[in-house]
């Protein structure tokens, strides 16, 4: 997927003024936030579950190598194959080679953020394969030739009317007016395609070490068709997806659906394990799991490790006021919102994704809703620190910060400057406020600057001889 993180500011600015996007976002926020709150209210032990899940993830991550190897052994034992990809390029090459070997012409895909991360669709298309996204949202953005804008609701940035228009353009016929009509239309289109699929590629919400199963949750059942109708099933998954036992998976599943869509569980929770056995009624002839590192093992050691707890529910972005104002495309890569503001700079570069962790108010709501208690605000701040160490903050800002620090360590100077500033601002004030001020446009373009009275608290307090 093309990296457009450097265009954050212009894309965010336009997003604020895109009426269709704004309409779609307002509708989505209402749904996601309300439904999650309701679902959680029905589980009194939700906080305890978060605590348990967070602790369990940390345990698993501290022995990740062990669980990955056990997973690999179990997959082999049931007749599947495991492939290790160090980076995106290796991952693409592995999948391409598997498709070629299968003589594939058509590839069906269930929703997989890792496949977006490694740029799989572009690579498959470049190799002459027809790629069909089967998740409704992914199907919509594929028709629109856009990347997904949300990790669980890829087309959340589109209004119903936009989707109707898009379908009419691609499927023919008059635009439909209701959601059920649109869903039926997509289902009929996709159903035909499923039956001529050679290879089915899905992601994985969890990989279970004790059984060798991969687990996906969907609301459309598209993942099941993708993986059971194709001759070859390929799972692409980040290495952090492994959990030791089925018991572990159920813990995370209880949190995932409620945090993501406010459901008790998603409509389909599908476990796949190896290729079709002799007495199975259906299933693929080959079963492959591509374990993608792509920088994850580097995140294991150091401050970023908690980020690997992420179960990709999207609650952080659903509750982020900035994401809610601009949507996911402005973030310019696969992972938007708070989790993306940590992950994207780590994947594409602290420099390339400079704006993402900075365009955040650190209000903390993301951390509060995270089902695995990732301290997102702390990690976002930590990315800023890493950017500081690399000298990436704008030069003017760095100079200002250095000067400010020097003053703040010298009380006489600091207070002198404050007194000066306060007097200046007081003379500029009209009716108690400053409408416009050279050098302060970034503030005064959006709001007035309340004018101070002309004396600082410290000088007034000590002038009264209070502490003498």
């Amino acid at each position, binding site marked *: 997927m093309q990296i457009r993180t450097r265009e954050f*500011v212009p894309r*965010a*600015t336009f997003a*604020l003024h895109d009426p269709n996007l704004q309409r779609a976002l307002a509708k989505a926020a209402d749904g996601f936030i309300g439904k999650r709150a309701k679902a959680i209210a029905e589980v009194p032990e939700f906080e305890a579950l978060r605590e348990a899940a967070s602790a369990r993830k940390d345990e698993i991550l501290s022995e990740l190598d062990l669980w990955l190897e056990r997973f690999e052994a179990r997959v082999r034992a049931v007749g599947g194959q495991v492939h290790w990809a160090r980076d995106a390029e290796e991952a693409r090459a592995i999948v391409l080679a598997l498709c070629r070997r299968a003589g594939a012409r058509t590839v069906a895909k269930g929703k997989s953020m890792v496949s977006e991360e490694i740029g799989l669709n572009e690579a498959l298309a470049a190799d002459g394969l027809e790629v069909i996204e089967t998740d409704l949202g992914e199907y919509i953005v594929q028709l629109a030739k856009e990347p997904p804008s949300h990790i669980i609701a890829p087309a959340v940035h589109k209004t119903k009317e936009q989707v109707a228009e898009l379908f009419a353009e691609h499927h023919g016929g008059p635009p439909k007016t209701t959601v059920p009509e649109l869903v039926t239309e997509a289902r009929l289109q996709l159903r035909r395609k499923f039956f001529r699929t050679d290879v089915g590629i899905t992601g994985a919400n969890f990989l279970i070490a004790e059984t060798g199963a991969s687990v996906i949750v969907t609301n459309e059942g598209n993942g099941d068709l993708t993986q059971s109708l194709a001759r070859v099933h390929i799972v692409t998954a980040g290495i952090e997806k492994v959990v030791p036992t089925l018991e572990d998976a159920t813990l995370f599943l209880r949190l995932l659906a409620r945090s993501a869509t406010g459901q008790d569980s998603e409509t389909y929770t599908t476990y796949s394990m190896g290729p079709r056995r002799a007495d199975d009624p259906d299933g693929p002839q080959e079963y492959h799991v591509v374990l993608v590192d792509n920088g994850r093992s580097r995140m294991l050691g150091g401050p970023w490790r908690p980020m690997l707890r992420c179960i990709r529910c999207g609650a952080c972005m659903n509750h982020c*006021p*900035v994401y809610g*104002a*601009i949507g996911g495309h402005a973030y310019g890569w696969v992972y938007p919102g708070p989790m993306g503001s940590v992950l994207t700079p780590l994947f594409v570069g602290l420099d390339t994704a400079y*704006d993402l962790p900075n*365009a*955040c*108010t*650190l*209000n*903390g*709501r993301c*951390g509060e809703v995270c089902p695995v208690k990732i301290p997102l605000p702390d990690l976002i*701040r930590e990315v*800023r*620190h*890493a*950017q*500081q160490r690399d000298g990436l903050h704008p030069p003017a*800002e760095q100079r200002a*910060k250095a000067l*400010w*620090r020097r003053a*703040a*360590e010298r*009380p006489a100077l*600091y*207070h002198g400057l*404050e007194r000066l*500033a*306060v007097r200046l601002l007081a003379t500029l004030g*009209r*009716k*108690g*406020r400053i*409408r416009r001020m050279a050098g302060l446009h*970034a*503030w005064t*373009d*959006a*709001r*007035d*600057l*309340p*004018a*101070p*009275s002309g*004396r*600082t*608290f*410290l000088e*007034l*307090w*000590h002038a009264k001889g*209070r*502490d003498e």
Partner: protein
Amino acid sequence: MSSPPGRAGTVGLFATCLMNAMRPNIGFAAARLLEDAGWRVEVPREQTCCGQPAYNGGDEDAARALARRTIAQFEAFDALVAPSGSCLATLKYDYPRLLRDDPLWAGRAQALADKSWELLTFLHERVGAEHIRSRFPHRVTYHDSCSGLRQLGIREAPRALLARVEGLKLVEAEEREVCCGFGGTFSVKYPALSERLAENKVQRLLATRAEVVLGGDLGCLLHLAGRLTRICAPVRVYHTVEVLAGLADGPGIGQA
């Protein structure tokens, strides 16, 4: 009817940068309430910034230097009190983290953190509300600032204190837990985003038909007051403690 000052203990009042420069009235209001309840209030002359702008801006080193300064200035008092949840959260949670590997300072950072209070919480939990006897016959809504709300869990204290104010009618806004878009330097680094978040918040506040917006953090209040005067909204903005101390008789923030 004040108690003899100092009987309850001595409080070091942390004069936040914004309060010091933009709204001294908040400091005087805080002092009045504390002194009425028998606390002695001192304001160390050498205090400067808590270091949060540096910490959030990526400069851990500067934040550490300012943390040490602040600790040295305040550790002798019975308590440190700050009229801001945001600065206080820095003192309480970030100082011990920033200095945890510093053998000379880790203990001192934690000791100060343990006796540092956000003003409204201090009034509610330590001082008690019986000394509050102000009158403010207005329809009021309260803005929960994110640092106070999420890092310090401030939710009840301001509401319980405001319930003591004669004539005050509190009307809660919708989406109380959503950020106003100030975010410190965020407000000037990403002004278009900050403006949209402010406008979203202002719409919710105005929907309550309140005459007055109160809050506990001057950063958010300057931002909201600036937005409210920009759109010529007939609403006044004060820090909660100004109302509690009966010092909200002058112009609101950003008004004359």
